[in-house]
Structures are given as C-alpha cells and as structure tokens.
C-alpha cells in the first residue's frame, strides 16, 4: 500500500471524479460520447506509454509532438497514394523509429542532454514539416477512415489496441529482463553498467521504441478523421509528460508503473468533458490540469520530506 501510494492516490482521485460525475452529471456516462472520448485519447495513451519508458530511463523526449505530426502527414500521404494500410502503418512506425534513432544516437552516442537534443529536434521537425507542406491538410481516400470498418468497430479496435499495448508493456516492464534493465539504467547508469547492462544501448533502444510508438499513435490518429491536420500533435509532449508525472513516474528515473500512467492520463483527459457536464466554463481546464500536476508533485515532496526528517 505504501509502496504504491502515488498510483493508488491517482486511481482514487479518478474514482472520486467519476463518482462525482455519476451523481451530479450522469449524462457523462452515455456510451457513445464516452467511447469517442476514449478513442480520442487512445493515441495519447500509446505515446504516454513510450514517454513513461523514456522517463523511467532517466531521459525525456519533448520532440514527440513533432514526430507525431510528421508521421501523421506521411501516413496520410502514403494512404492517399493508395498504399495498402498495413504498409502505411509499417512506414509510419518506421519513420517514427528513425526519428527516435536520431534522438537516441545524439543522446546515447554523443552523451548530449536529452532535453536539449529533443528541444532542437522538436523545432527542426515541426518547422521542416511546415516548410515542405506549407500547412496543407491531407485528404484521405475513402476506406481509410476507421480502416474501412464501421465507426463503432473502428473505435473499439483502436481502444483495444491501445489497451493491449499498455498491458503488454506493463507486463514486460515487470517480468522481462529488458524491462528491469530500463529501471536499472534509470536508477543508476553506472551501477547498471557494472552489473553488465549496456546503458547506452538501452537508452538508444528506448528512444527508438518511443519513436516507433509515436509512429503507431500517429497512424491511430490519422485513421480517425477524413483529413490529416498538419498541426496535429501540438502540445502532445507536455500532455504525455503531465500524464506520466501525475501517474507517479519519478522524473529522476527508475521509478514508476504503467497503470499509474494510465490512471493519470484518464484523470487529465476526463477534466475537459467533466467541466462541460458539470456546467463549469471550459476555460478552467488548463488551471485544473496545472493544479493536478502541482498537487501530485507536492504530495510526493511532502512525503519524501517527512521520510528524510
């Protein structure tokens, strides 16, 4: 109980929010809008899972939003060229992985600080995309939206894919050697090296994986609408970092659980629709999000303080 205090408190906060909504605004629980909400957040969940791995490894990646935009536009263009969707998906994932590899090479290979490297790549990819595409929306051909399935089926597919990735990664983190390696490198890279782990290879791998997940998420986002927005993914990095931190992953690495991240993301995602249903002005969304982030870290700080005294 004490060990999982953070995860449990986030889950409890989410539970209380849902309970309050059930009492005061039962309209929140209509199945169709709820499914739409969850579907919209499915790509974010996939990116947040990757971000959790990166942060557990004591790095950070703020270029995911730009990677997401480039992958979305590329996926849209390939789909518009009538590539088979499987190939489009593979291409999107590969492009994402290539971006991740670029970040990873600079961070792990040259030993540069990840926050600055990804700050630079964030600006570069985003502006590069604007330059090449001039902000044009990509029209998708028929049969791409929801993989050509009925909308309901398509939505469920996306949600289940996101959940499957979450569960697989959570299990892998806990039970596979490679998952434990990520925690080890995040806790203390030097100690991990002495234990026979290759921290730089792990760091590189985590960035590549983050990129691949971003590519997948971009594809999951692309098929939700008939057009691709070239500005998609703006602010995605902060949204996912917020979810990861609220979910109890330590920014100093080596600690955190993916189900905490899941609860954190749901909590942040529910705020905006909850405000609408509780008839509070939607402008308060960011205030509440910021307050939740601060509250989450302050509880951490107070607990650690008590421990150290």
């Amino acid at each position, binding site marked *: 109980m004490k060990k999982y205090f953070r995860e449990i408190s986030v889950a409890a906060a989410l539970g209380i929010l849902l309970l309050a909504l059930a009492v005061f605004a039962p309209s929140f629980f209509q199945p169709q809008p709820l499914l739409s909400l969850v579907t919209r957040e499915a790509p974010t969940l996939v990116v947040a899972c990757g971000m959790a791995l990166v942060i557990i490894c004591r790095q950070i990646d703020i270029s995911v939003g730009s990677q997401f935009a480039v992958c979305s536009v590329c996926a849209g263009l390939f789909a518009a060229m009538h590539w088979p969707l499987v190939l489009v998906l593979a291409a999107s994932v590969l492009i994402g992985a290539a971006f991740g590899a670029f970040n990873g090479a600079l961070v792990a290979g040259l030993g540069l*600080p990840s926050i*600055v490297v990804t700050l630079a*790549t964030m600006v570069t990819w985003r*502006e590069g995309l604007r330059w090449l595409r001039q902000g044009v929306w990509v029209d998708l051909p028929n049969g791409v939206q929801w993989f050509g399935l009925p909308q309901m089926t398509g939505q469920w597919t996306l949600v289940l894919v996101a959940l499957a990735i979450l569960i697989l990664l959570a299990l892998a983190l806990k039970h596979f050697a490679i998952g434990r390696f990520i925690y080890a490198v995040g806790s203390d890279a030097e100690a991990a090296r002495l234990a026979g782990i290759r921290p*730089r290879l792990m760091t590189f791998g985590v960035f590549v994986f983050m990129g691949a997940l971003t590519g997948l998420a971009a594809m999951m986002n692309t098929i939700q609408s008939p057009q691709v927005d070239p500005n998609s993914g703006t602010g995605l990095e902060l949204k996912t970092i917020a979810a990861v931190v609220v979910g109890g992953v330590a920014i100093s690495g080596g600690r955190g659980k993916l189900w905490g991240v899941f609860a954190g993301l749901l909590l942040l995602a529910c705020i905006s629709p909850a405000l609408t249903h509780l008839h509070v002005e939607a*402008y308060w969304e960011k205030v509440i999000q910021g307050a939740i982030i601060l509250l989450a870290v302050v509880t951490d700080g107070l607990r650690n303080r008590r421990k150290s005294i």
Partner: protein
Amino acid sequence: MNTDQHGYKSILLRHETILFVVLAVEWIFFDAVGHNFGTYDNTCDILRHSCEIGLLALAMTPVILTGGIDLSVGSLLGLCAILFGKFWRDAGMPLPLAAACTIGVGALAGGLNASLIAWLRLPPLIVTLGTFSLFRGLAEAITHGVDTFTDFPASFLFLGQERWLGIPAQALVFIAAVIFFWLLVHRTTFGRSFRAIGFSPEGARYAGIPVGRRMAMVYVLAGIVSAIAAIIYTARLGQAKADAGTGYELFAITAVVLGGTSIFGGVGSVHGTLLGVAAIAVLHSGIAHALLPGEMAGMLTGVLLILALAGSTLPKMISGLRARKSTPRLAKQIP
C-alpha cells in the same frame, strides 16, 4: 570557471568566441543576400522584436546556472499581460500603478515556483510544467479566452513602438536588464553561488551557501522579468491577449543553451546568452529579408543548437578517448 583555459588559443576556442563568429558570418551573409538588411532601421527592428525573448533568456540564465529550468515564463508573460490590461482598464488604475502591480504579480508567481522548488525540493522541470499550465489557464479563465485589452494611450505605446535618442525605447529597458544580470552573475557572490549550486547543491550547502534562498531568488527574478517582458510586449503590440508569449519559454531556453550555458548548471555566462539571443534574432530577420521561407529560421535554430552542443562535447570526448580509451558516460539527465 575556466582554470584550464589560458592563452589566446583557449580564448579562440571558447564557446562565446565561436558563437560571435557565427553571428558575424550570419550578419555578413544576410547583408549581402538580403534586401535592406544591414540598415539602421532594420537593426532597430531586430532589437525591438527580440526584447521580450531577450529579457526572458536573461532571467533564464541564472535559473539554468543553478541547474534548474523554468518552463513557465511564457505562460506567466501571458498572464501578466492580461492582468496589466485588467488593472488598467477594469480596475481603473493609472498605468504606472498597474505596471507596478503587474510586476508584483510576477514576483508572486515566481515565488510560487520558488517555494515549491527551493523548499519542497521538487524537480523544477515538473513544477514549472505545472505552473506553465496553471498560469496560461488563469489567463484564459480571466479573459474567457476572447477578451482583449486595447486602446492604450500613446504615451504608453511609446515604450514599445517609438525611439528615444535614436534607439527603440524598450531596448533601454533591455540594456538595463543586461547590465543588471551581467553584474549579478559575473561580479557578485550571488553569481558565484548560482554556479556552485549548479555544480553540486550538496557541496554548495557544505560551503555555507544558503542554497534554498539562492534558488528561490532566481525563480522570483524570473517571475519579475516575465512581468516586465509582458508590459513591453503589450506596449509593442498595443494589445494584451491570453495567448501572449506562447512558446517563448522554448526560445529563451534555446538562446541560453546556444549561448554556452550548460543545461546541467554550473557553467555559463550572460554575454553568451546575449550572443545566443542575437544569433537567433538575426537569423529570423535575415531569413525574412533574404525572402527565404520563414520556416527555415526555426529549422536552422534547431540545427545550430545541436551543432553547438555536439561542438562543445566532441573535443572533450576525443581528448577523453585519447587519455583513457574509455567510452564516455551518459550525461546525467533532467535538471
């Protein structure tokens, strides 16, 4: 700080010198290629447009020197801009009083960051990520996302749009800030203690430096400077909106890091930051005057940032390889 860097060779290889050369090359190139680039009017224009980001970058320098980071300055600029409008238009305050109150709010907001970071020992990245969202959200909530403040008197707009003794009026504020921060960082014990904290907070504490108070000081300063930048921003554009200063924090951080300040703290200079701001501002203006696509400026800034970082790491890496044949370790992460 540069104990191992003596003689002309080390001065030539210093980060600031290289950046100065880059800046000079930029200037000469755009002067040759661009239309009306090197004119006095355009120089004033560059100054005018880089004042707010320059101020934020100046305030960010001590923050990063202590090994911290402040993501909230752009949002705070937005919040202060609309509060300034609110004080003046809705509370009926005279402009100087409104400006003073705005700066007070900036100090308070900086104090919020400071108390969480310095006394609760929370990671600056996360605290300021939270206040980044909080301040912007407050700005949007106060204006309902649509309210804008305009029709400021001409005497106030003078600060942002006119020249005084031939130089843009806000440049005077900026120059004052440059002098203040240069003295603070390079000529006082405060500056020494910022570096000491950046190297090792624990070590600084044992050396008798009040680590908490010094760290609080840099964040409060960042808040005050954000408020001043907000007033200048409002004067330049003649209006205050809730989205003022979106993304400015990233420009400021880019300028500081480009200027040679280590993101891990402990190493850096105010004149480096100044050169970083100038390099970015000249690049943006030059690309516009050379009729190149504006997106190139952003891309080149990113490329320049990576090159600057790699450039400062590679020589160390090579000499390290020669000395010990060992692989370089991963840099410690997250300020």
